[in-house]
């Protein structure tokens, strides 16, 4: 089952749920499917491991990454580029907004309220049940509520991103999938897709899933590891 997604997509979720890794890989997935893709790094609250770190790799694929001005790239300052409002008003085939964590991470969306008004948007909550505070459906629903209040937007779907990074097992993926299905049932929100790391994919029985799978080619890695090359997979 393929991911079928276009328009304006806003990726939200609690701290460390994997929003950025999901956003980067979703951008790559859609680009490979032939869409014109732009992605904005709107994580104004987190100092490290942000979309901007994958900018060069994404640019090589022809994905435009909107980041703060160069001189502020390594700052933890709440800088919102005016380009972001422009990219919402004149969206690409896929316009991805990668938000910061929790409710504070989406406060910035209020500043984009005028640009977003009247537009059809998708707001997806990334959940990883192996993270603190979102290991129960109730925890995820609490975060959903907080994010909706702060952003004044309604979340429209769930992305299951169960993982323990390098230590993820096939069983963790299945546990996470069941968790996401349960959350979908409790919240009434559709499960848009779940993620599986590229290296784990051969061990996964995809027949078990009724939703699409987003392959994760990990880009946010510590300095002693290498990000997976994205260019080699381009058709």
């Amino acid at each position, binding site marked *: 089952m393929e991911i079928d997604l276009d328009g304006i997509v806003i990726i939200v979720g609690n*701290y*460390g749920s994997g929003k950025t890794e999901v956003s980067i890989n979703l951008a790559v997935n859609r680009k490979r499917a032939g869409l014109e893709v732009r992605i904005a790094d709107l994580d104004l609250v987190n*100092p*490290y*491991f942000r979309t901007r770190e994958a900018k060069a790799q994404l640019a090589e694929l022809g994905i435009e990454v909107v980041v703060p001005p160069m001189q502020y790239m*390594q*700052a*933890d300052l709440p800088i919102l580029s005016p380009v972001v409002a422009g990219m919402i008003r004149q969206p690409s085939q896929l316009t991805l907004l990668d938000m910061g964590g929790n409710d504070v991470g989406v406060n910035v969306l209020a500043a984009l309220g005028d640009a977003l008004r009247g537009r059809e948007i998708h707001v997806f909550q990334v959940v*990883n049940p*192996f*993270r*603190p*505070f979102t*290991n129960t459906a109730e925890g995820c629903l609490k975060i959903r509520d907080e994010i909706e209040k702060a952003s004044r937007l309604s979340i429209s779907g769930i992305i299951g991103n169960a*993982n*323990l*990074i*390098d*230590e993820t097992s096939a069983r963790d993926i299945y546990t996470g999938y069941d968790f996401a299905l349960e959350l979908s049932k409790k919240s009434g929100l559709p499960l848009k897709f779940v993620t599986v790391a590229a290296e784990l994919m051969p061990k996964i029985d995809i027949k078990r899933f009724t939703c699409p799978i987003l392959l994760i080619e990990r880009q946010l890695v*510590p*300095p*002693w*590891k290498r990000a997976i090359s994205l260019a080699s997979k381009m058709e």
Partner: protein
Amino acid sequence: MGKILMKGNEAIGEAAIRAGCLNYFAYPITPQSEVAEYLSRRMPEVGGMFLQGESEVAVAYMLFGASACGARVFTTSSSPGISLMSEGISYMAAAQCPAVLVNIMRGGPGLGGILPSQGDYFQATKGGGHGDYRLLVMAPASVQEAVEMVMLAFPLAEKYRNPVMLLGDGLIGQMMEPVEFPDHLKSEPTNKDEWATNGMDTRGSNKRNLVKSLFLDAGKLNDHNLMLKAKYDRMKQEEIRYESYNIESDYKTLIVSYGTMSRVCKTAIDNMKDEGLEVGMIRPQTLFPFPEKAIYEAASKESCKIVVSIEMSMGQMVEDVERSVKGKLPVRWYGKCGGDVPTPEEVVEAVKSF
């Protein structure tokens, strides 16, 4: 409980709770603010307390006061914040008040930057504040090790009645790794009735406890310092911790590196091994006391020709490495400041250049 995925900062906060610490005082600063954020949510759940001071100066004295009363206390900060706390840390060391301090280092000097650094090695291991005191300093290289070290730090702080510091760089605080937590420890210092000003009625004793750092009499201050020195000497006997890597090979170069920098070095060592070049490494897990003997012995290996200290600073630990090697071999330094963590390729290039 199975593994969960945590940011270092969150895991450090959770580890303090698991160690039975219910008193957290702090002031936010990047890149450690997630500890405060995490504990502001978690502490009330376990009946604990997070009090944000009006500055790091205030935080240090909140720690001092609560510790003097026998509470298990904890703070986290980053480089400039630790500078502000240094006076209070000296007072705590002098008055023998246990506390656990975490420094998630950022680039310096001054306001510096918010990216990872190891520029506070001197500050942590050589004093920082005034007077003849030492902190027991541990340096984790992974999120799991940060958890284990925080949990070990509390009993060690109480054993020595001395502040213990966890020295992590920004990456330790910000990176996410799977972690597991051991069981809770008990929440009260075991020896507090012997020294804490917790009230004679409370402890059912008629011995008066006094916590102070003022000794106006020259002889008494000298005696006090000798007693403190004896504690630091005991740490050197009992608390040295380190890890060796590829030390069984016939290495020509010995790397000494700590924290996340040592993980870059491990990748570099593996890459060099593939090329047929053997390099060994000693990773100090305690920076004070420093694993001098282990480094001397590793440098004494017949095949070893040079020792290189690799650190995210302009050459601080290298002085302790030189001291450990005792002139037996040439000692070099390689490092970078500013937040660009050296890559494995850069480490390989540096090692080959010496």
